[in-house]
Every structure is written in structure tokens, then in C-alpha cells.
């Protein structure tokens, strides 16, 4: 939020200096920035994590699954850290209720496949990440996997108000910086052009 405060301070200084453009700018930009700032700060108020559509055991399988679809690698967060499972659960309890059976059947299938493996200790969540990947490769063409992939992505990268992307974890993973405003230069290749002005 430093950026927001700096901008306000700058505008106030400009108004104090009598810059007419800034007076008009201040009213509009400050209000818009306040709103935009609220949006970029959103995510701190994490939604409830209590399961709504799935049982705890089912949610654990989904969490294990989405964390293999978008795993944490190279020290970056993934779908688990973003809380994508909460998006899946809330969606199944609301606008995505029509896919609930697809999910419950798909979860049961993953557990069945896990238990059928030699020296299996339990269901899908008990497998090692490499074993989970093996099981997922068996089902990656199924409608269930495709639905879960879509939801893992949305749960990682949609606004936190949908239940996932906790504290904008997913956006941080991408290097997508969500600020109410930016200034040039924006990237590596325009640095010279924008410095020259």
C-alpha cells in the first residue's frame, strides 16, 4: 500500500502547489485508488475453509490432486498453497453443483486406483507425489481430470473472493503484480525508451 500512499502524498503536494490539473485529478484518482487499493489488498480476509460440498476426506483428495496439477516447484507456491481446494468446494456447493457427482465419482476412482497399487497403504492422499502423478496420468483424459485441471487453475488464479488464490499466492507465483497503478518503464525492453522519455 506504500505505492497508494505515495501517490496520494504526491497529489496532495501538487494541489498545495496550486496545480489545477491535480485538483481535478486528486478527487477522481484518489477515490479510484482507494477502491483499487481495497481490491489489491483483498485476500487478507480469507473465506471460511470449512468444507461445504465435499467431506473432509474428499476435500483432502482434491487438495492432493490439485497440488499435483499445479505443484509447488522451485520454492514457488502452487495450488495447495493458494487454497484452490476451497474454490473447488465452494463452486461445487454453488454455481458448479452440477459437477458434484463427477467429482465424488472421480475421487472414489482415484482412491480405488491408489488402493489397487502394490504395497498400497491407503487412498490417493497416502501415495507419494510421484505415485500420485502415476495415477493422474492414468486418468488425465477423463472429464473428471479435465474439470479438476480447470478448477485448479481457476482456484489458483481467480480473485480470492472465489475461495482460492489466498493472499494472491497464485498471482505471486506467476510474477503477476497486482497494483492499483504502475508507472513506466514496465518491463526490460521498454526501460531505455521510457527513460529517454
Amino acid at each position, binding site marked *: 500500500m506504500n505505492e497508494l500512499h505515495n501517490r496520494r502524498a504526491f497529489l496532495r503536494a501538487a494541489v498545495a502547489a496550486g496545480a489545477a490539473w491535480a485538483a481535478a485529478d486528486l478527487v477522481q484518482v484518489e477515490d479510484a485508488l482507494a477502491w483499487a487499493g481495497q481490491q489489491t489488498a483483498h485476500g487478507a480476509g480469507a473465506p471460511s475453509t470449512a468444507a461445504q460440498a465435499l467431506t473432509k476426506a474428499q476435500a483432502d483428495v482434491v487438495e492432493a490432486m490439485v497440488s499435483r496439477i499445479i505443484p509447488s516447484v522451485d520454492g514457488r507456491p502452487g495450488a495447495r498453497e493458494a487454497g484452490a481446494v476451497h474454490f473447488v468446494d465452494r463452486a461445487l456447493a454453488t454455481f458448479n453443483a452440477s459437477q458434484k457427482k463427477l467429482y465424488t465419482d472421480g475421487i472414489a476412482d482415484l482412491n480405488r486406483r491408489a488402493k489397487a497399487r502394490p504395497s498400497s497403504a491407503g487412498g490417493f492422499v497416502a501415495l507419494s507425489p510421484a505415485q500420485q502423478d502415476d495415477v493422474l496420468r492414468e486418468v488425465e483424459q477423463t472429464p473428471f481430470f479435465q474439470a479438476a485441471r480447470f478448477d485448479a487453475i481457476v482456484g489458483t488464479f481467480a480473485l480470492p473472493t472465489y475461495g482460492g488464490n489466498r493472499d494472491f499466492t497464485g498471482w505471486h507465483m506467476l510474477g503477476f503484480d497486482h497494483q492499483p*497503478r504502475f*508507472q513506466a518503464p514496465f518491463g526490460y525492453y521498454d526501460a531505455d525508451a521510457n527513460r529517454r522519455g
Partner: protein
Amino acid sequence: MQEQRPSARFRPSDLVDFAIVGSGAAGGIIAKELSTAGFTVVVLEQGPRLTETAFDHDEFGTFMRNKHANDPATQPQTFRASSADKAVPQLALIYGRLVGGSNAHFTANVWRLRPLDFNEASVHGAIEGTGFTDWPITYDDLEPYYTKVDWEIGVSGVPGPFDPRRSKPYPMPPLPVKSSGVLMDRAAEKLGLHSQPAPMAINSQYYNGRPACQHCGFCLFFMCEFRSKSTSMATMLPVAEATGRCEIRPDSYVARVEVGRDGRATGVSYFDAQKRMQMQRAKAVVVCANGGETPRLLLNSATSRFPNGLANSSGVVGKHLMFNTYFGANAQFEHPLNEYKSVQNTRIVLDFYDTDPKRGFYGGGGIDARFGKYPITFALGGLPPGSPSWGEGYARALAEQYSRSMFFGSHGTSLPVPTNSVSLDPSLKDAWGLAAARVTYKDHPDDLKNAAFLRSKAMELAEAAGALKAWPEPIAPQTNSVHLLGTCRMGNDSRTSVVDKFNRAHDVKNLFICDGSSMVTSSRGQPTMTIMALAFRAGENIASFAKRGEI
């Protein structure tokens, strides 16, 4: 942000001078022109009126749940490629459903047409199986109104080497170049092409009471909470309301244009927010509902006097639907571009604008340097073919490539094919009981050849820019669009066109139609500037007609 607007309020039973259907690019401008000329105006908008605090950065809601666009759950449509196929439920005509219309969420590219666009059929000759024809107006007729858009709406830019004559310079300098634009400059120079700053309806500096762009990055399909995007919502509607003669009436879904025994429009019937039927009486009606909804409304307004739909003695209402083509080349670079910042695109190449008979097909277009992919869209399909679609390699590629990716977007022409159309579905109804739109669309072979040609040029640009990896966007037949053009075309001949060169319906003296449906040809993929210019021209002329008692 919540200014007090001294808006007029009318009762439906009040006989106002004009009822305008739609509050987007055209409706907003015409409302401003007519109300400032002294006329009373009611603008009926089917969507809600939202304030800036409703403008969020919600990609999922906006792109995948129709948060501010027409929702097929309540307004279903059907689609078929040809009349031989069965039309199946599918969203084909996509538009902004809010006060401000699609213009509220447009990307803000504002390319003028060139003189050539207006008489291309004469220059290149007829094309079999199409309704390809000249416009009834010329570039010179429209130039003053393009300039009005520049200055009254607010456009940032600088003339390029191929730009048509302009009577006034741009009011604002171009927006700061992005990394994608610098790469475009380099590539164009290498290839002997011409990269120029993109004209954008976005403030590059404080202008007309609205702040400069803050570069937040959410233009494409998002509304601007800073009001820096020069939309008719941010610029025209406040002026119209401030006259005290114009009411913007949201949540008002127009069902029919009503016509009296004398064949003149008497007003419009609409469903209010409670789905109660109301009728707004008006001395004249202006339909600006977009190239999809305008023909649907006219067809749904059929009476015994106008059995084929209102203003449709020609039979061409709904025909010649044009989507434009939009494909291009994806590219990844060594260093971060951070294309998620600022406006969509800052550079365009217009070397391939003209039709070149040597290519063997009709068409032309432009290429812009942009990104166009918010995080979900990128994760769903922003990596090159053959990339992992899940797992560690996938997660790594997403993290490494999001900031390093861009798109060379190629925007092209669509030919006006009479069988490409909006008609009424014979059985499907929307949630208000109105016949749903049935869309029939199959790209003309030249459109797809032109798209492939432009895409090959986009690939050359990507490679010349030094992309580590470049790959083409697959070209497939188009089944939907946000560019809805040509369905009530203008022309001098009432047998082959719907409106005259002042946007007056040939068949109904006090009915005017102005939006993307008026366009005779498709533009090179950026029609909004022309829709806005047509609206200024129509608005000015309608006001003159009304003052002279010629309506």
C-alpha cells in the same frame, strides 16, 4: 466518484422527443448530441447502471461467468454454420450488458477507416456470393466526425505513415510504449515495415475532466474505475444527463419498437426491472442496440404491416453479419516484458491494410503488439503446443513465462456474406419470452486466407523481434464474436439496405438505426472508431432533421 447528476426523469406515458435503445458507443453519443441540441431523450438500457466501485479485476467472473455481458442462461442464442445445419444453443453474439454497453469494456483501439474502405468494391470489383459493396458515404464525409471522437471522446496517438488525412491533430500524445511495443518497433524496422503508436481511446494525460491512465492493466473486457478510458459512458452520458433533458433508464429491456397505423414509430415497449411491460412514448426512435440485438429487435417488432420485421422491406435486416478475424502469433522472450501492466497495446503495424490482388484474395488488416491474457486465460492456454498441461513442468513454465509472453495480434476483414445472419430462432425463447437470436455464420474463404496471411506476418514479426519461441494461434472457423457488424447496413438503395446515409430507416421516417449494424464493410478489425463517428454524424443530422420538422 459519485457525482450528483441532475438527470431528467420521464414517465413512460410522457411523449419524449427521442427514445434511444442502447447506451453504448453509439447510443451514448447520440443521446448527448440530441439532448444538447435541446431535445428530450430517454435512453433504455437492458443492463444495470454500475458505478466505478463495481468495476473490479475479476477475470473469472468477467470472462467465464458473464458478469457484465449477456448471459446465455437468461438470453440464450443458437448457432449454426449454414442453414443446412441444425442450430444448437450457443452464445455467438457477445456484448456488454450494462449502462455504457460493450463500449464500457472495450479495449479502446480506435483505428479510423481509410478512404479505400468506403469504395473498395468499386476498386476491386464484386465478389461472388457476397454483398460486398461501397458505402454511401466517403471518408471525407466522416472525417469531421472521426475528429469529434478524437476530441470529444478523447484519443491518444500520433499520426502514422499511412494514416488518412486528419483535420486536427490528436488531442493527446500517445501512451508510453510497453516492452511489446519496443519489440514491435525493432521487428518492423528489421523487416522494412512501419510500427506506429496505437491510437487509443485512453487518456495519456489529464483530459476533459478525466485523469490520465494509471496503467493498472485491466482494459480488455474490463471497465475503467479511473474513468481514464474514453468511453461513451465516461464522456457522453454525463454530458447528456447534465442537460436535464436526458434520462438514462437502466434495467429496461426493449421488446418491440411500436408502430402506429400511419406506419410511424410511436415508442418502444420494454420490460422493466420487475419484468413488467411498459411503453415509452416517443416522437422518434433511435435503435443502437448493437449489431446482434438491433436486428433481433427489428425482427421481433414485426406487425401485419411489416410482416418480415420492422424496416425490413429489403429483407436484409440481420444479413451480412461480419465478425472480423482475430488470430496472430504468440511469443516468449528472454527477459520480462510485464505485459500485464498498462494498456493492451501501444504499437501497431498497418503495412498490410490494403487489399492486394496479387495475394489472390480479398482482405487486409493490422497487427498489434499486446498480451491479452490475464492469469486464468494464460494458465488455460498460454503455453506453446506440446508444453506440459499439468505437473511440475507446467507449474515451472507458467511461473517463468507469464511475464515473458506477448502476442502479435492480427486483425482482419470479414466479407459481408448474405447467409451470415442474425435471425429469430423458431422455437427458443429468452427469459422474457422473446424469440432468441439464431446466428448463422461461416467465414468466407477469403476471410480465412487473409487471416492466415496476416498471421504469417505476425509470425515474421515475432521472429524478427527475437522471440525465443513463437507459435501461431490456430485458425478455426469462427463461431462467436464481440464485433457484431453489418446487419442493418446503410445504403442509397432501399431494396438492398436498411438505413440511408444518415442512418434513417428507409421504411420508417422516424426510425433511426446506428451501431455496428450500420457498417457496410467490416473495417480492418477495429470498428469502434467508425461506430462512434457514425453516431456523431447521425446525431447531428437527426437533430437537424428534427429542428426542420423533417421527422
